[in-house]
């Protein structure tokens, strides 16, 4: 584990472990409490595997009342709680603390209602993203946000992180596809925000909760809208001699008024790696490769594909292939979707960054990443949700070599700082978690962060729910959030404080 600072451990809680287990055993079925180290091991990390910590105890409630009673108990007894869905998050949002109760929501795994008339699905939070689509696809519907982990990630986790995906460009992220949630606050209050109706009365708590990374409440039910599947979907695979050409093509397609369902770019390194891995038939000699996909009715899709073709040719495309069948289209995507495992072949470990930038800055940012790659002497491959400016550099390193991990962290931090510098954001869809926590000062000033912490304190005065995530620890304002600080080392020590 790297030099990551977490909130101060409450020794008195550690010493009360047996009592806590027996107290919670009166709230839920004791069989749903795990406390032996062997049982806790699977919960020591999430999708950000570079960081590991065993929790004090794991609880697996089965009803919203149990969630409420556990939270109330923990609130009354000042016990920290870390909520966890499927544990696929890439920013360490459900990394346990040594003195925490890890609330694993895995037993909330049922779809409650499919309502075609209102075009929505009401589900428990630990149903996977893809299971929602599977449940409605026989009637020709689907759930639009499609994070690449959709086969495993939970819908509750999607809400907590406001997950996006390849198709966010046209259909938005989780927050734009959500109608309602049931949530339990740290004091045990059970409430519903939104429902099957659009928008809601009063303040938009649904919007506030979405993307709050488990700091404001535990989600126990989710209502999402479902869409009618498009009549046809077509994709074009386009090679470009330079990154600039690809970047210009993206900007022009958008400016022309075509909004593709998805528009992805990969650099040469990743194109080659994924092609070797999945034999997707990619133009490996191209400096940049683009997949652009349109969906809708026959005429609409054909019109847009033709337009995209013309724009690509104008921007010096070196190769261009339009899918002739759904099988061929899926083959185009197979390589892109195998980007992670393909990098896994190239290096022992990789870290996936998640910056967001204005589309027009693509070439500039990629040049900077190349420069940094040389500076840190670590290889990098770039995947890019080009349509909405979301960049995923995959930095390759060796986690067993401490120096290599440190270099990787510094490299990642430099990329994200550059994203902010050109007018972008630290994270487009993976969340801040622990990974980018100390970088928040790049995007926000003291007052901005203070305002957010004041909201946190309003709903969780003792800062017991998922502490140590999202907000920087070694800062003046963190005191208001009641996050204790000790020691001196931080993950990104070279970042200026304010």
């Amino acid at each position, binding site marked *: 584990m790297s030099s990551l600072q977490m909130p101060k451990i409450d020794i008195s809680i550690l010493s009360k472990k047996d009592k806590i287990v027996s107290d919670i055993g009166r709230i839920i079925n004791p069989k749903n409490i795990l406390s032996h180290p062997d049982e806790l091991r699977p919960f020591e990390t999430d999708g950000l595997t570079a960081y590991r910590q065993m929790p004090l105890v794991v609880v697996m409630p089965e009803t919203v009342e149990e969630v409420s009673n556990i939270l109330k108990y923990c609130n009354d007894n000042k016990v920290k709680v870390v909520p966890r869905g499927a544990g696929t998050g890439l920013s360490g949002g459900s990394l346990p603390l040594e003195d925490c109760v890890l609330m694993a929501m895995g037993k909330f795994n049922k779809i409650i209602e499919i*309502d075609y008339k209102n075009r929505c699905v009401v589900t428990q939070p630990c149903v996977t993203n893809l299971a929602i689509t599977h449940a409605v696809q026989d009637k020709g519907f689907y759930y639009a946000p499609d994070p690449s982990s959709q086969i495993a990630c939970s819908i509750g986790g999607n809400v907590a992180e406001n997950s996006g995906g390849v198709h966010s460009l046209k259909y938005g992220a989780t927050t734009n596809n959500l109608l309602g949630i049931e949530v339990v606050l740290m004091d045990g209050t059970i409430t519903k925000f939104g429902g099957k109706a659009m928008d809601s009365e009063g303040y938009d708590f649904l919007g506030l909760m979405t993307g709050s990374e488990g700091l404001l409440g535990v989600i126990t039910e989710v209502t999402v809208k479902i869409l009618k599947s498009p009549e046809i979907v077509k994709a074009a695979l386009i090679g470009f001699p330079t990154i600039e050409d690809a970047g210009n093509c993206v900007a022009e397609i958008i400016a022309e008024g075509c909004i593709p369902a998805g528009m992805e770019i990969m650099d040469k390194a990743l194109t080659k790696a994924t092609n070797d891995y999945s034999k997707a038939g990619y133009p490996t000699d191209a400096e940049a490769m683009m997949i652009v996909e349109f969906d809708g009715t026959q005429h609409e899709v054909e019109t847009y594909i033709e337009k995209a073709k013309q724009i690509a040719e104008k921007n010096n495309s070196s190769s261009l292939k339009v899918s002739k069948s759904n099988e061929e289209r899926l083959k185009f995507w197979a390589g892109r979707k195998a980007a992670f495992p393909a990098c896994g072949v190239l290096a022992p470990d990789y870290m996936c960054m998640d910056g967001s930038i204005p589309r027009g800055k693509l070439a500039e940012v990629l040049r900077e990443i190349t420069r940094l790659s040389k500076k840190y002497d670590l290889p990098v491959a770039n995947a890019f949700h080009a349509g*909405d400016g979301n960049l995923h550099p995959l930095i390759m390193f060796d986690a067993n070599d401490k120096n290599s991990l440190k270099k990787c962290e510094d490299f990642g931090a430099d990329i994200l700082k550059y994203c902010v510098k050109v*007018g972008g954001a630290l994270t487009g869809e993976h969340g801040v978690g622990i990974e980018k926590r100390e970088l928040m000062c790049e995007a926000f000033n003291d007052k*901005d962060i203070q305002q957010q912490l004041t909201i946190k304190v309003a709903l969780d005065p003792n800062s017991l729910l998922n502490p140590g995530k999202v907000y920087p620890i070694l800062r003046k304002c963190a005191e208001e959030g009641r996050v204790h600080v000790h020691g001196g080392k931080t993950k990104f020590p070279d970042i200026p404080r304010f």
Partner: protein
Amino acid sequence: MEEKQNFQTSLDFNQNIFKPSTREEIVEIVKNCYKKSTPLEISGLQSKNKIGRNFQAEKTLDLSNYKGIIDYKPEELYIKVKAGTPISEIEEVLKKNNQQLAFEPNDFGYLFSGESNSGSIGGVVACNFAGSRRFKVGSVRDHLLGFQGVNGKGETIKSGGTVVKNVTGYDLCKILSGSFGTLTVLTEISIKVLPKPETSKTLIIKNPHVKKALDYLGQSLSSSTDPSGGVFYPDYFGKNFILNDLTHDGGLTGIRIEGPTNSVDQRIDRLSKELALINNEYSVLDNVQTEIFWSKTKNLEVFKNSKSNLIRIVVPISETLQVIQKLKKDDLNYFIDWGGSLIWMAFDHLNSKILSEIKEITKNHQGYYTLIKIEDDFKASADIFTIDPIKYKISEKIKKSFDPKRIFNPGKMYTGI
């Protein structure tokens, strides 16, 4: 102390209405009000100021001078403006680049003053009322990319940015959208813009029956023809539309289809077949007529010059028919938007008994209401917005976190908030 001196040099604090033209002035005004616990009414272009509860404010912060486009990048699909910028000015600029605000902000001017006043961008965000495209593209809140504002302590805060994908920290854009100026004075707003569709056409189905209309709408919204508007006007309002291809003067259902021209024609054709319409039962409005029809809809022009009270009711589409049947007494003074989920209903007279009935009915049908226009005699005692006790408590806490002394629009949404 230094700040106070600066303030005194730039503004006269004895006046009751401030019309700042810089953010620094806004900060000074709010700081001063915070210090003295002076309630402050936040106002824009007066298009929606009558929506909300009556409340007392010693001072008014008029943002109509705080206007202008800061940055517009058509290829990045965003525009960044000062909060007091008129919607009409923004729409004009976007039009030159063939772009638009896809959420179709309502123009409440016709309702309140008989003529167009679409208000300012700050007001539109503060109210979060979206037009007919709501069910397809989302509400105002879904298009707000970022903001800068001044909280109740006079501190400048920001959230979001100008890129569409951004999950850095809590999404304060959402909590401020629809907060009716009770949390923060918005100063700068970055809003997503989208290309205007090449063609928009409207399938008009002549039918007077709400049940049939809701069937048409439900079926259309669940079809792959991908409509971007769905509205029903009963007989009472049918005569309000005089268009070349709309000679029928009774009840009508309108379904809008947008996109590339050939695709629109194909989809309109398909939809009319899916709905099993026969030839003399429907007509199709072209681009120009479509624009007029939907502009009249989002601007509530059928209620222009009406003396009645107006309620905005949102329910799941499955509940709409029952809600209308329960609410509708003798008159037929309502229309349905958002493909069946939004009911605009006028009442000649309202009293607390009728209102509590409405509240009960909308709540039982999983929806909510907002009183948009209401007779003065009743306004002081009426619940303009609904809320349950748990959410009220949470709202109190959130209000306090932004505006600890309750100086911004105190009581505009709820007593004590």
